[in-house]
């Protein structure tokens, strides 16, 4: 739906934010396409919330400009920006009924009384909580309050929906359900959404684009697949998913593969995506789920795949999957997560491990 040359909905240009001597966001450029859901992902203190709050106008950038719909908003006060904000703790007004909470933004937008009622009713239907108008926020559960907060934010038809870790206060099961609901609602309304989270699963499952941040700096931006499968650096690979980092040296490059000699002396193939030449020190990143482990005795290698030996050092059984720590050689172990298509391996058992070259991602050694 989004054409390439359309004006981005939100643009950060050279944005920088300092609190006193602390730099919360380092000079950053970033575009958000209209109608997309963009996640700002990173550990706490990485500047993601500050970035979001600058869009809302709750923080002023120290340097740089923010554009919404191509218009510079730095000097536009908060209440004139037409944004919907959802807070981590919902921030429902405890002294107002649900109706008054949801109608709040409309009241300040010259909407007629009759229209307010229609819109509030429709918003409550959208979040699947019709008929709670007369209740007080304290009479609703956490998940319900979260829905009201959503209804309150979308009812004003904001240009951009801003969500600051909206699901982190919910318990695990509810979070999963709400995540899908937020996703569906966002797609139904087609509203440009900026979603702040430290939860990689939220980010991966919902986003059109992810911006990974650390210490106020952009680490990588891209769609979920590219951020997960082709992490730009050690931090991104480590933060998203369970990764194995294997240091090595490039010993050969051909059209399809880069040959890497790893610490154990084994030579592994990685898909050649360019950028590496013989003699480079590299780090090979392999997701724990990408390995397959077989009993050593029965193992028959598949042509073109990497394979090596090890023995099970430790395991933890997690029901659907098993987490194995496999010792390859001296002081070198890898972590694999197996879906148990064969059987449960014993500690000490010798196994053969296989992984496809296209699951071996290379980054320069940091």
């Amino acid at each position, binding site marked *: 739906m989004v054409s390439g040359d359309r004006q981005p909905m939100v643009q950060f240009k050279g944005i920088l934010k300092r609190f006193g001597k602390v730099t919360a966001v380092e000079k950053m450029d970033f575009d958000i396409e209209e109608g997309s859901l963009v996640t700002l992902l990173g550990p706490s203190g990485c500047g993601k919330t500050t970035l979001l709050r600058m869009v*809302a*106008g*709750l923080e002023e950038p120290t340097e740089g400009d923010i554009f919404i719909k191509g218009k510079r908003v730095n000097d536009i*006060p*908060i*209440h*004139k*920006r037409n*944004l*919907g*904000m959802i*807070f*981590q*703790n919902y*921030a429902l*007004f*405890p*002294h107002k009924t649900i109706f008054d909470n949801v109608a*709040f*933004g409309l009241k*300040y*937008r010259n909407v007629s009384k009759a229209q307010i009622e229609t819109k509030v009713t429709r918003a409550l239907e959208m979040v699947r909580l019709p008929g709670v108008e007369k209740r*007080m*926020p*304290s*009479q609703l559960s956490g998940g319900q309050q979260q829905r009201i907060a959503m209804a*309150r934010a979308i009812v*004003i038809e904001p240009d951009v929906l*801003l969500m600051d870790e909206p699901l982190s206060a919910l318990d695990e099961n509810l979070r999963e359900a709400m995540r899908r609901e937020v996703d569906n609602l966002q797609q139904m309304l087609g509203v440009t959404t900026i979603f702040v989270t430290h939860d990689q699963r939220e980010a991966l499952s919902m986003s059109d684009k992810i911006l990974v941040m650390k210490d106020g700096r952009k680490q990588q931006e891209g769609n979920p697949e590219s951020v997960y499968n082709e992490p730009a650096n050690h931090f991104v690979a480590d933060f998203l998913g369970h990764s194995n980092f294997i240091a090595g040296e490039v010993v050969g490059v051909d059209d399809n593969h880069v040959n890497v000699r790893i610490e154990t002396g084994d030579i592994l193939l990685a898909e050649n995506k360019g950028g590496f030449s013989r003699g480079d020190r590299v780090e090979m990143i392999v997701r724990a789920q990408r390995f397959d482990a077989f009993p050593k005795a029965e193992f028959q290698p598949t042509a073109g795949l990497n394979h090596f030996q090890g023995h099970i050092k430790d395991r933890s059984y997690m029901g659907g999957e098993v987490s194995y720590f496999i010792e390859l050689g001296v002081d070198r172990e890898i972590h694999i997560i197996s879906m148990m298509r064969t059987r449960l391996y014993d500690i000490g058992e010798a196994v053969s491990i296989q992984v496809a070259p296209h699951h071996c991602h290379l980054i320069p050694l940091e």
Partner: protein
Amino acid sequence: MKSEKWKPWALLAPSLSAVVLLLVIPVCFVIVYSFWLRAPSGADIPAFQLGNYAKFFEDFFYPGILIRTIRIAFETVILCVVMGYIPAYFFYRSESRYKQIFLLLIMLPFWVSFIIRTMSWINIMGDSGLINHVLIKIGLIETPFSMLYNEFTVLMGLLMYLLPFMVLNIYVSLEGIDKSLLEAARCMGCTEWQAFREVTLPLSLPGVSAGCLLVFVLTAGTYLPPMILGGPGNDMIANLIFKRVIGTLDWPFGSAISVILLSLLFVIVWTYNRYLGINQIFKSFQGN
């Protein structure tokens, strides 16, 4: 389970006995005294008669003082709200490093004797006080002009005494307001002033309400400011009790006035709680 029943009572016992010994029993004494008879000789004779109460309502003199007391209490409450909200709000919004010190300063007056604090106004506003001294020095007036010993100075003394209670009560309830509520209001289209009206003000009302009650009750029962800063016509009900009990040693009549004041305050506080009640206001915040 049954044997556990005594536990809460055992835990409550120290505070409960303090309340009984220091509050319930003395009040019972006062009530009993209020029915006694005072002989012309000055002796108190145990009796059960309503003469003391009848005497209070005999003419308009005593009820007039009671009404004045209630009026002054209302005036003090209103002044305290207006003059207390502003500094409390200032502390709440302040991001100064010295905020804690400011708050401490609010409590500083409590470290000085109430009597000394009240008397100090004489040094400021008295005939030979600071203000008159300065005014004469710069030649604005020739003879000192009298500012003390009227209702205004009584109110001033009361304000000085009670303002910190109001400020602290309001401040605490303001501090309890989640700042993201204000941000939410701002994002939805409120100017700063509108957000104050929609969020801050209503959510700080429990503090205002508690402060009002405290100030009202304390004003109604105080006698020092009128005694030190008021004139003969500014007596409040507690002065009357003080004069009867300490001055003329008329315990039965003093007790009767106390019981009347107590009953009136009870009715007012009960009505207040019923309609503007702190409980009511807090109910809507439960779960947040």
